């Protein structure tokens, strides 16, 4: 959500609270009627530079962040989440709420009405059968699908008519509405004919309902899309949309400067280039708040970290402002919580971090950690030494590590750096909590929903037989209780109270050390209009349909 829209967002959410609904029933903001009349022929081309290669084109298969750029453009979900967090219909005709009867009072029965004017790129009409096929494919045990959270609770999917579908949930699950904004619909009539959806020809040549049709892919180089002139919503205004893969940050920026690319995608502008970039003629460069939080993840089962005093002392010994100002050129903002700054659920008045080495030393002294012969503190035979890891080759994080290492040494804590390649560190090393500590940027929320059961519930510890991603092995009975309550609650205000308390506890317990949240520097050519940041999605191209060239 864009920060400047604070007031509108707040009032909108109040409204949501009054309605007791999951989403705001928005008018057909993106609907065809309003725009159909003045729809000019799309023209021009926009080249988006991205630093990771687009991999998976089937939007339901397990995929990485950068793939979203293509999926949001080629496909549509039932709903769309707007920058301010409101949910509006996309393929659906309206957003079901408890108020309008779309969701039953107990939250178990869902009824979704669909648009009747949507066509697949091959001309076939989009119907409720496609929705049913999509939701069933996601939980098909033989299909390598992406997230199944929420979808696995859906049962008894019934096609009432081509424009109406109903299903039941195993238990009330408020986050599902938000998940559906990222669940892209795939065409039943094409995929059904394929023997194996994992290797379908469709996966190389996708057909959606989105504003752009897939044109081609040049491996290791680019993915090219062309305008879908029959699009049911706003736009598209441009004729061709190209995602160009440029693996090196310097080259990416150089090409943005030289004008070879029109809009910067993921990796965006590195902090060291921001100042120069903001003065480039003919380029629009803005800072947008990132929803991911850069943090030091601690393994709470390690004897060194079991004691709160140690975690507090290490936190107090991190010179956040020097890190932010010098290493990151002052761009990021210090944070105290996992909840994105732009979220309605963000708790603003949490205790502020203070860099204070004396305080840190005192905390450790009081807790009985005494410096040994080598200057490193010891208590009950445990040396206050730990390893810190991150993805090898990440320059900025390596600088941060070395800087931290120096300050920690001053309070008698030894940190050694042991970085690993991406495919290694984020494997079992991460999921099975084999690390001491890692520097990691985490997006805690799934879509815009504040539910963090997956990260902080005690049953989500994979290293202890759990099935989630509670990699810091954090255990707190009260947090468990609150998280369970939160996922059953649909009313935003009631949920706010719940997640405020979760944030209070996590800030006090410090299972991980929050450092900062980035303000990423986005840029595009001055002639492009309609680019809007949406922190509730993972892609700068979440609504490329609205992009256009002017002048």
């Amino acid at each position, binding site marked *: 959500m864009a920060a400047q829209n604070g007031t509108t967002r707040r009032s909108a959410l109040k409204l949501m609270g009054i309605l007791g609904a999951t989403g705001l029933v928005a008018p057909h903001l993106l609907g065809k009627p309003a725009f159909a009349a003045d729809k000019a022929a799309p023209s021009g081309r926009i080249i988006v530079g991205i630093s990771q290669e687009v991999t998976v084109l089937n939007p339901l298969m397990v995929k990485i962040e950068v793939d979203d750029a293509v999926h949001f453009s080629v496909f549509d979900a039932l709903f769309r989440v707007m920058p301010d967090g409101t949910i509006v219909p996309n393929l659906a005709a309206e957003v079901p709420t408890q108020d309008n009867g779309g969701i039953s009072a107990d939250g178990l029965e869902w009824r979704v009405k669909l648009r009747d004017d949507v066509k697949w790129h091959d001309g076939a009409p989009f119907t409720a059968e496609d929705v049913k096929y999509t939701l069933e494919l996601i939980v098909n045990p033989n299909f390598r699908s992406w997230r199944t959270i929420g979808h696995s609770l859906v049962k008894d999917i019934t096609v009432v008519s081509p424009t109406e579908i109903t299903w039941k949930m195993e238990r009330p699950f408020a986050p599902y509405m938000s998940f559906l904004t990222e669940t892209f619909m795939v065409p039943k009539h094409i995929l059904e004919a394929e023997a194996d959806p994992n290797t379908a020809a469709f996966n190389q040549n996708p057909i959606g309902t989105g504003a752009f049709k897939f044109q081609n892919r040049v491996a290791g180089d680019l993915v090219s899309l062309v305008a879908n002139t029959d699009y049911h919503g706003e736009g598209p205004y441009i004729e061709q949309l190209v995602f160009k893969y440029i693996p090196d940050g310097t080259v990416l920026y150089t090409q943005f400067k030289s004008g070879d690319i029109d809009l910067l995608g993921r990796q965006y502008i590195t902090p060291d280039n921001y100042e120069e970039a903001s003065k480039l003629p003919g380029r629009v460069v803005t800072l947008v708040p990132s929803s991911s939080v850069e943090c030091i993840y601690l393994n709470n089962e390690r004897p060194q970290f079991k004691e709160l005093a140690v975690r507090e002392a290490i936190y107090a010994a991190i010179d956040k402002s020097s890190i932010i100002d010098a*290493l990151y050129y002052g761009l990021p903002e210090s944070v105290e919580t996992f909840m994105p700054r732009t979220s309605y659920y963000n708790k603003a008045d949490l205790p502020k971090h203070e860099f204070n080495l004396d305080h840190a030393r005192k905390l450790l002294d009081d807790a009985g950690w005494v410096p040994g012969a080598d200057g490193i503190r010891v208590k009950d035979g445990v040396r206050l030494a730990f390893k810190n890891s991150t993805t090898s*080759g990440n320059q900025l994080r390596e600088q941060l590590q070395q800087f931290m290492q120096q300050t920690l040494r001053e309070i008698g804590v030894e940190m050694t750096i*042991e*970085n690993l390649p991406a495919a290694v560190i984020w494997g079992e090393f991460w999921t099975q909590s084999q690390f001491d500590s890692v520097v990691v940027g985490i997006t805690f929320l799934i879509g815009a929903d504040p539910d963090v059961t997956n990260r902080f519930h005690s049953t989500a510890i994979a290293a202890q037989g759990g099935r989630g991603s509670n990699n810091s092995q954090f255990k707190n009975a009260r947090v468990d209780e609150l998280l369970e309550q939160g996922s059953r609650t649909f009313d935003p205000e009631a949920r706010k109270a719940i997640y405020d308390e979760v944030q209070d506890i996590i800030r006090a317990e410090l299972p991980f050390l929050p450092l900062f949240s980035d303000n990423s520097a986005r840029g595009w050519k001055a002639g492009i209009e309609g680019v809007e940041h949406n922190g509730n999605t993972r892609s700068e191209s979440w609504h490329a349909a609205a992009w256009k060239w002017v002048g």
Partner: protein
Amino acid sequence: MTTLAASSSGRSRWWQNRAVRKFMRHRLALVGMVMITALTLACIVGPWLLPYDSLHIDLRARFAPPLTGQHYLGTDPLGRDIAARLLEAGRISLLVGFAAMLLSTLIGAVIGVVAGYRGGWIGATLMRLVDAFLAFPSIFLVLALAALLKPSPTMITVIIAVTSWMEVARIVEAEVRSLREREFVLAGRMLGLSGAHIMFREILPNVIGPIIVAATLTVARAILLEAYVSFLGYGIQPPLPSWGNMLNGAQQYLDKAPWLAIIPGLTITIAVTSFNFIGDGLRDALDVRNDRM
């Protein structure tokens, strides 16, 4: 090669002297020798003479260009003195280079001698193994192994050694095969000496020339390999400097701080060139046939 075999029976000193004289006449080899000695000395002594510690971070002094105050070679993105880091890094890079050379020469020589002397299916199998390793792009093995083993100077050394012994093995195998039926070997066998004794006591000293040459070039190669692996971030871990990891990140700051890339790269080139010069001189001095570069 023939000269060596002939001189084998009487291990007199004269050939040594002749080789030394020949080597000394080789101007490039001398230049290489002088450069590498100077570099090594600088790396050993230098860090004590400089006013800065290689690990000391000073964020106020980041990106100082060369000749700023007492930062003769400038500072890096954390404000650490590059001169201090360069010399400290030299210790590690040269040590890794040497150690990797010793290890890979050892592996290569043993496999080469055994394969060449035994011949038959043992020899064939060992040489196929050599071919198999040669058929890999060595960077694949290095990167995969670096991910497999936790990176530390020791591990990097092992990894480089494991991926660069094949050349030595090939050379030694060829030499040994040609010596296998020579009189002194046959004599040894008649005397009932054990295979191991003949291989390592009788034959090995005769192929020491080519081994030394190959070893010198392996040091050069090992330094290059370490640099590339560390450049990609898989090698020596921070804050420990190595010539390779000093370059890691230099690409990002190429525009604003080109010295970050120029200085370590130049040092690597000088070191590797020196070893190649020395190798060339040794090849001439020891009369090793010039069948590889």
